[in-house]
Structures are given as structure tokens and as C-alpha cells.
């Protein structure tokens, strides 16, 4: 059906009434496209996000930390898979989406273009990056598109666990030796501002915000979510005696919010457009894994074609 004005009016009435849109329902072409863009970006972010943390799995300092980090990165792969499947309900296959990532056509969260330099970065990512993701995803769990909203509910539960794990790593380091505390503070200094950028440009400068809000995909603005994250995080930093790197940070009695200093949107723009510290390396790593794995995927397809009747071979 073409996007006739009547159809769009009816669709927007459903959204306004708080109804959930399901894969078989009619939806405007723009709505479908916006969701594919958002959901696939989210899935790509989970997959690329495995790289900075995966970097420390082999150097995790205790067996418990090694298992915690492995489980976290495994969860991220699971989230990626789950959201790719959700995106497929909009009529686009995973192979095509992955191709868009590898050719640079699709974006992923810029935060993963920053390097993990010390073990404390693993704590900072869990605390800040997963913390920011939770604020954003709690809102998306009420999105108008059913498969996305349901995925967010499930993913948020795991992200909460990741955030606690990250914060606990930071608390341990902050209470540790002077070297450990220095590591923790340095990680906070490097990850704080990029974490604030994760919420995206101010709503007035965000090209997609208005449409996404009207269609109930986004329920809150970028600035409001960013402020919520800052408000939540300040007290957590104080509790473990780490300093957020913002000289302007102070309570604002008028609003009850924590006022924070200006974000360097030039840096944000630079990293989004490919000139972050590790953009090239991250994409190269994904391309390498994809091309190294090509013969494996071909073998699996060839085997399946030969043995169409049997779903899986029995090994035992």
C-alpha cells in the first residue's frame, strides 16, 4: 500500500493512542526506514563494542574478572544477534545489514572508537557506557515498534548487571593501591565526555529527533536523557571518591539537576565521521573476522544444502 495521507493519519492515531506496531501492521515507509537505521545501528554497536572489551579478556587480573568479562562480551554478541533478528522483522536480512557495517554505510556508536588502555577502562565502560545505554534503552523499551521495545526490556536487564559489574571494578580500583587509583581516575577522565556524547547532539541539532518522537520511537529527548545520566552518575562518583573531569559540574538549585560544562561537539563530529582514535582499526577488525570466516559460512551452507532433511548432524 502506498503511503496515502489517510493511511498515515490512521497510523499516527494508533501511535497517539499508545498502540504497539507489530511487523505485519502497515507502517509508513519512513517509519520502517528509521527503525531499520536505528535498530541496525544498535546491533552494530553491540558487535563492534565487543572489540574494546574483548581486548582485555586475555589480561583480566583474576579468574572471577576473566569470567565476568567473558560473560559480558558474550551477552553483547547475544544482544547483537537479538537486535539483528528484530531488524529482520522489518524485511531486511542480516547479511545485508552486516554488509552496510563493513562498507561503512551504517554507523555504530562512536564510543567504541576509543581505545581501552588499562584494566580500569573495563570498569569505566561498564559504569559509564552501559550506564548511559540503560538510560537510553529504558526509554526505548517503550518504543512504538513491538519487537524493538521487547528486545530493549530483555537487554536492559543484562545491561544493569554489566553496569554494576563495571562500577564494582572501579570501586575496587579506587580503594586499591595508588597505582590502581590512578588508573581508575585516568579511565574516568578519558571516558566521561565521550559517554555524554553517546546521547547524540542536542535535540535542536538532531536531524532525526522530531520524526522519531512523533512516531513514538523516542519518548524523550537526547538532552533530557543526558541530564538524567549525569544526575545519576555524580553521586556514584562521589561514593567511590573519583572525580568527574568537569570544572563546571555543580548542582543547579533552580532545576534540581547537576549543571555540566559544554560538550566538545567538534570532537563528536570528528569521531562520527571517521577520525576517532580507532575508527579504522575497529572496522578493519570486523572486516578481517568476516573475511576470515567466509569459508566457514560457505561450508555451513554447503553442508546444509547437502543434508537438507537433517537439521543438525549428531556427533555422539
Amino acid at each position: 500500500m502506498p503511503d496515502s495521507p489517510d493511511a498515515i493519519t490512521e497510523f499516527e492515531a494508533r501511535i497517539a493512542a499508545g498502540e504497539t506496531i507489530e511487523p505485519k501492521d502497515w507502517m509508513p515507509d519512513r517509519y520502517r526506514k528509521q527503525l531499520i537505521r536505528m535498530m541496525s545501528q544498535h546491533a552494530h554497536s553491540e558487535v563492534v563494542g565487543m572489540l574494546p572489551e574483548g581486548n582485555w579478556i586475555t589480561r583480566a587480573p583474576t579468574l572471577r574478572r576473566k569470567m565476568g568479562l567473558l560473560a559480558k562480551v558474550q551477552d553483547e554478541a547475544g544482544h547483537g544477534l537479538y537486535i539483528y533478528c528484530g531488524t529482520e522483522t522489518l524485511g531486511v536480512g542480516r547479511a545485508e545489514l552486516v554488509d552496510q557495517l563493513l562498507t561503512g554505510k551504517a554507523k555504530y556508536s562512536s564510543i567504541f572508537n576509543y581505545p581501552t588502555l588499562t584494566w580500569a577502562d573495563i570498569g569505566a565502560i561498564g559504569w559509564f557506557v552501559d550506564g548511559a545505554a540503560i538510560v537510553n534503552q529504558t526509554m526505548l523499551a517503550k518504543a512504538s515498534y513491538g519487537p524493538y521495545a521487547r528486545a530493549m526490556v530483555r537487554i536492559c536487564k543484562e545491561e544493569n548487571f554489566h553496569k554494576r559489574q563495571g562500577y564494582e571494578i572501579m570501586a575496587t580500583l579506587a580503594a586499591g593501591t595508588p597505582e590502581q587509583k590512578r588508573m581508575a581516575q585516568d579511565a574516568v577522565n578519558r571516558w566521561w565526555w565521550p559517554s555524554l556524547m553517546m546521547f547524540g547532539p542536542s535535540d535542536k541539532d538532531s536531524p532525526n529527533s522530531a520524526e522519531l518522537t512523533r512516531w513514538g520511537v523516542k519518548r524523550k529527548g537526547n538532552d533530557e536523557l543526558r541530564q538524567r545520566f549525569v544526575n545519576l552518575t555524580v553521586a556514584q562518583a562521589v561514593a567511590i571518591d573519583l572525580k568527574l573531569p568537569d570544572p563546571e559540574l555543580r548542582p543547579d538549585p533552580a532545576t534540581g539537576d547537576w549543571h555540566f560544562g559544554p560538550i566538545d561537539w567538534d570532537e563528536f563530529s570528528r569521531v562520527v565521521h571517521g577520525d576517532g582514535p580507532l575508527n579504522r582499526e575497529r572496522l578493519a577488525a570486523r572486516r578481517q573476522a568476516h573475511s576470515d570466516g567466509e569459508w566457514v559460512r560457505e561450508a555451513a551452507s554447503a553442508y546444509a544444502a547437502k543434508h537438507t532433511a537433517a537439521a543438525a548432524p549428531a556427533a555422539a
Partner: protein
Amino acid sequence: MAPALDGPVQAALVQYLLRLGDDRLVLGHRLSEWCGHAPILEEDIALANIALDLVGQATLFLGLAGAAEAAGRDADALAYLREAIDFRNVLLAELPKGDFAFTIVRQFLFSVAAYYRLEGLATSSHGDLAGIAGKALKETRYHVRHSGEWVIRLGDGTSESHTRTQAALDALWRYTGEMFLADDVDATLVRAGVIPDLATAEPKWLAQVTGVIERATLAVPPSGYMQRGGRTGRHTEHLGIMLAEMQILQRSYPGAKW
């Protein structure tokens, strides 16, 4: 609390537990190197899952080794503060991860052997050992299934996957014998009634492995000299480099809590 064992039996038990723990720690570490780089997302998940199981089992076995040794070393101290010459894993576990065929074939060869060993150890008269073996056995059943299915898919997939999988099998075969070597450590524990005699594990392993290799349209490599040394600390050069990476933080900041 297990009943007190004679000195030599206790010493053999410590060695035996270190072997079980080190096999799993080292192989789990190798598998974890795949995280984020697997051929498909489903395998990122599956390999991380097997790695998690193995590191979890290692933690339990090493913890028990530390308790049996009674020298104040816990699982972390054993994992992070021993030299390569003190590690007791089979050489098979420490070889670099190679391509996906190498990783999968190694996992299959190891997991089937582990399965029959754990099946025996689950009946051990040592309650803690039997308990850990029973739990690990359940996990290992899945590892056998997952890796075995892939061996069949890769062997019977394309000509490239067939060639790569056969090459992995040929390269790894000479490291398999070490998994079944029984020395004084094993004999002491069998004599004391701590563990059962596991002499039937090797023929069971060979039968099952041969069955899968044939279904995968691959050839069982000819038997020849079997490499050994890991059980007595004579390792390949790969282990030291792996440990340098794994142990860096514990070595760099002695006594720090993480």
C-alpha cells in the same frame, strides 16, 4: 571435608588436580581469544560459552588443588603466579588458536577425552572431586556435541573446509596421546582408591572420534610418535607467551586486589 590422605597420595592428588585445572584454564584462555572475531555471531557466543565453562571448571579444580596442597595458594595464585614450567596442562591445550578448523578440531579431540575422564572421576571416592567432575561432565557433553557437529559440517562442507579440517586433524593428532598418558600420579591415586582406573577412556575416545571423522568424510591420521611433556612442565614455547599476557597485572602489581 574429605578424609585425610597419606602424604604421597595427597601430593599425587595435588598434581592430578593441577593437571585437570591447567588443561581447562589454558584451553579456555585460547578459546577466549576468539571473542569478537568469530566467523559468525552465533560462534562468538558459543565459543565464549565453552571458554566460560572451561575457566569455571579450572577455577574449581585449581581451588581444590590449592586446598589439597595446603600452602596458602588459592585458584588465582595458582593461575597467575606460577611459571610455565609449573603448569601441568597437555601441550594440545596451549597451541595457538589457529584457524576456525584448528580450534574446532582441537576442541572436539579434547572434549571427548575430557568427557570419558570426567565420567570416571564423577564416581571418585573423593567427594569434592566427584562433585566438580559431575558438574563439568554435563557442560562437556554440550562441548562434544557442539564441536563434533562443526567437525562434520566443515569436513563435509566445501573442498576448502575439508582441506583445512583435515590439515588441522593431521597437525593435532600427534598431541592427542598425551591426554591418556598415565604415570605415577595416576597409579598412586588409583591404588589408593581415590580415582577409578581410566584405561578404557582411550579406546572409547578413539571409537567416538573415529566415528565423527568418518561422518565428516575425513581420514583418521596414521598413528605415529605422540608429543608429550606438558604433564611434567616441558611445554612448547607458546605457553610462556600466553602466560606473559594472562599474568601481566598480577605480576606487575604484587599483592594488589582486583
